[in-house]
């Protein structure tokens, strides 16, 4: 009788420990949901989920400085992976803060569990270094989100879920086909083995299809059409989650593909369409946001443009560019989730505070909340004194440095348009006599205040201490 040997050792399991924690916590969540009385259920479920994420965050941080290619090179643990995993974890934690009203009472455990599984998929993508693990992570991330998108009682929720399912599956199809071609061109699924493809034409085609799949996940132009509808239909915490965690996972794969997989001599040619996509996103996203009357749709369009800024930082695939992309992604996470937390605080029992009318004269009704929102909007617009300002400056510098001055100019134009978008809301909050006085409402929960406070502090501190992790690049490969 042949003995079954497992070829992986302790080091391999250690490398995926943070992800394992996030993937197993949902089991506890579901158990708690089953066994506990209704009165404490939601609170305990949220607490268990948050503790699981924090434990995973600590486990991930402990791996700093110990790069290791686990599972035969399928998952690379180390600086790059850790940074993205921490972004995913923090993003998921802040989404949990908004999730006190996610789904009906009997759905909350399942919803939180799905959210965590989705996060574990993004964490897998952060370290995935071959086509199989990339696909595994992507599907884990997406499948849970399909269900989450449809969970609210809103009329648009099912439409959003269906739209997301169909369009995302199509994009996944593109990506799979691209992966097949990449495998055909190189004879390997390992990103590090892509250096010298046997068939360059096939390789270029495969890369193109693969990138289309990623660009869809990043919701960059021209594959962005789904974003506003899905963001609007999905419940607020899920929208917040998608706006950061999905993007972080996809960006990790994109960066690894651009920096570690593509042959050096072809990088410029293969990725040129990507820079054009980034440029289009910065313009189209901001122009699209101009006409929105719903905060979630507006933030969807703004996210399209913001991810355009992040991808701009990668232009020229320089080492500094990767650091600034990560820095801007982290800054974007704080300012965006801060804005979402304010939206959550404006929500009440049956209505999400996402219509722009809810912001009329907010500066006179709830001054502190309005001041916080102003701060996050200034950050999104890239105005000082916020991390958005420092982040944009760093991106400008790196793209000028890498010889992509035209992208820097497009970024400036996009920023000028975006200022109108964001400051329009500031105007609504502080202009006199706009809109009728709103009745006093009790917010659904005070929990988002924690998110507002931490995000505001982080956005301010990152302005003056732009912590860009220094040793991420050697650990991409």
């Amino acid at each position, binding site marked *: 009788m042949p003995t079954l040997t497992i070829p992986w050792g302790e080091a391999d399991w250690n490398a995926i420990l943070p992800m394992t924690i996030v993937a197993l916590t949902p089991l506890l969540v579901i158990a708690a949901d089953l066994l506990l009385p209704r009165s404490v259920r939601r609170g305990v479920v949220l607490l268990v989920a948050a503790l699981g994420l924090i434990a995973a965050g600590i486990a991930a941080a402990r791996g700093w400085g110990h790069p290791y290619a686990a599972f035969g090179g399928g998952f690379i643990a180390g600086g790059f992976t850790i940074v993205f995993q921490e972004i995913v974890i923090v993003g998921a934690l802040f989404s949990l803060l908004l999730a006190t009203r996610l789904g009906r009472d009997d759905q909350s455990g399942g919803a939180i569990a799905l959210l965590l599984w989705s996060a574990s998929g993004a964490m897998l993508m952060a370290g995935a270094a071959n086509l199989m693990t990339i696909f595994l992570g992507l599907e884990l991330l997406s499948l849970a989100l399909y269900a989450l998108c449809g969970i609210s009682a809103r009329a648009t929720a099912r439409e959003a879920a269906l739209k997301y399912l169909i369009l995302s599956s199509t994009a996944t199809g593109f990506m799979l086909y691209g992966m097949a071609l990449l495998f055909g061109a190189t004879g390997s699924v390992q990103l590090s083995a892509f250096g010298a493809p046997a068939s360059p034409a096939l390789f270029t085609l495969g890369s193109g299809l693969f990138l289309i799949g990623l660009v869809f996940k990043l919701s960059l132009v021209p594959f962005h059409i789904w974003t506003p509808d899905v963001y609007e239909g999905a419940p607020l915490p899920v929208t917040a989650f998608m706006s950061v965690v999905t993007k972080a996972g996809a960006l990790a794969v994109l960066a690894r593909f651009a920096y570690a997989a593509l042959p050096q001599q072809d990088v410029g040619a293969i990725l040129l369409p990507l820079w054009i996509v980034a440029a289009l996103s910065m313009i189209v996203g901001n122009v699209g946001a101009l006409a929105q009357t719903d905060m979630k749709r507006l933030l969807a369009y703004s996210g399209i443009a913001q991810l355009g800024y992040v991808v701009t930082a990668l232009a020229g695939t320089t080492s500094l560019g990767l650091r600034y992309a990560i820095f801007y992604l982290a800054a974007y996470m704080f300012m965006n989730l801060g804005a979402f937390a304010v939206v959550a605080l404006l929500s009440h029992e049956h209505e999400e505070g996402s219509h722009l009318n809810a912001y009329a004269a907010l500066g006179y009704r709830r001054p502190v909340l309005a001041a916080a929102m102003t701060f996050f909007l*200034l950050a999104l617009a890239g105005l000082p004194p916020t991390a958005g300002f420092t982040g944009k*400056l760093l991106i400008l*510098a790196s793209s000028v440095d890498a010889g992509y001055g035209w992208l820097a*100019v497009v970024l400036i134009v996009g920023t000028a348009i975006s200022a109108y978008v964001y400051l329009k809301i500031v*105007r609504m909050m502080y*202009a006199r006599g706009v809109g009728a006085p709103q009745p006093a409402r009790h917010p659904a929960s005070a929990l988002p205040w924690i998110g507002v406070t931490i995000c505001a502090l982080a956005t301010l501190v990152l302005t003056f201490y732009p912590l860009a992790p220094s040793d991420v690049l050697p650990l991409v490969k």
Partner: protein
Amino acid sequence: MIAALVLLPILAGFASYLMPRRAELTAKWFGVLIAFVCFVLAYLAYGQSDESLRWLQRPFTANFHVGLNGLGFWLVMLLTLSTACALAALRVPRQRDFVAQMLFLLGAMTGVFVARDLLVFALFWDLMLIPVFLILIAWAPGRSTATAWRYLVYNLTGGLTLLLATAAYGVVEGTTDVIGLSAGHGATAIGAAWGIWIFAGYAFGFLVKTPVWPFHTWMPDTYADLPPPAVAVVSAVQSKAGLYGFLVVTAPLLPEQMRSAATAMFVLGLVGLVYGALVALVQDDAKRIVAYSSLSHLGLILLAVFSGNALAIAGAAVYIIAHGVFSAGLFVVLGQVEEREETRLVSRLGGLDAVDPKLAGALHIMVLAALGLPGLGGFAGEILILTGLFQAGAVWPAAIALVPVVLAAAYMLRLFQHFMHGPSREDIPQRADLRPAELLALAPLVIAIVWLGVYPAPVADSVSKSIVTSDLSGPKLAGVRR
């Protein structure tokens, strides 16, 4: 100490929100007190050694580097003084919130003038837009926010090109910690390929902010819609930030590009000079008269900045400060008129000096300073600039520049005459004259105007300390001044 000049007003701005909303008078005098404390602190901090903290190491070196000397010092003095006087002399609704915004503005603008690093300069440059934007949306008369948008769109576009230029400068030079250095003293002149674009980015930001024709269209509406204390500070100081930028940032760092742009700038300056004066002649709204007169006066300073003549540049420094003082004074007095008569239209007012002689006297002094009466601040600046222009060989521009200087007398006296002289109008309210506190608030501005008129040397010398005029062709200051 210098960093405190920036941080104190910003923190005090937040602190003022802790006061009850109804404590209007407390809030007002709190704002005056903070501005006055900043004035004293700035005076004490003059020439103290710079303060610096590391900000960025990559992609270029940038430091939170602040220093207080030269022209920047005088602009900070002007800023703190005009903020204190404007807040003391005038009333606005929702005083507490307004004081907070004015203190934010004070801190942000101080940051612009003490910055010794281009990136810090760019940060405060963009930051100073936000309080003005908020004041425009929350305090402008009427419901329209079009003025606020126009202000924002123009100035933010300028701010963004300036930011892009800063990033490019940092990438090319490896550091942005260069303000106050000059070519040959640490900073190197930038090559032609990059220099022209970097200069264009800065110049656009400065031209919009000053504003210079044809980028001025945001300015008259903004000045008309801002509440009086805010417009006094914005016209006195914020509009000088562009000229300060030309003198302190681009002149030392990009001397080649300054020289090659001189002809174009002369044209823009001259057009603005004549156009502003002509439009000011026919305006009905007194605030717009002063706004267009600013366009005219600042055009003259732009000529001086680009003349490359040391005497003209010394005159520019004097006129920058003097114009700040008398335009702050003019807007404060116009605000006091409007508080009493509920209008500021030239055609609706008349005969005020019979009822309000003190108000008339105050307006008289400001008007005389604005039209360049010898012995007051405006004259000292104008005569230095015009002499310098002739000396630099720019005879025709100087000759053209004389015409609007004469026209200034016409529109300023028209304003004064319609407000104060003639028969008393029956259809406007008769209100009490200036109270002692209001007179006291104007006194520092009057003293400053007279002082600049009779003894402008400290301000004139400030340029030779902070700006290396030898980079621009022309005779040395020292040989001419005596």
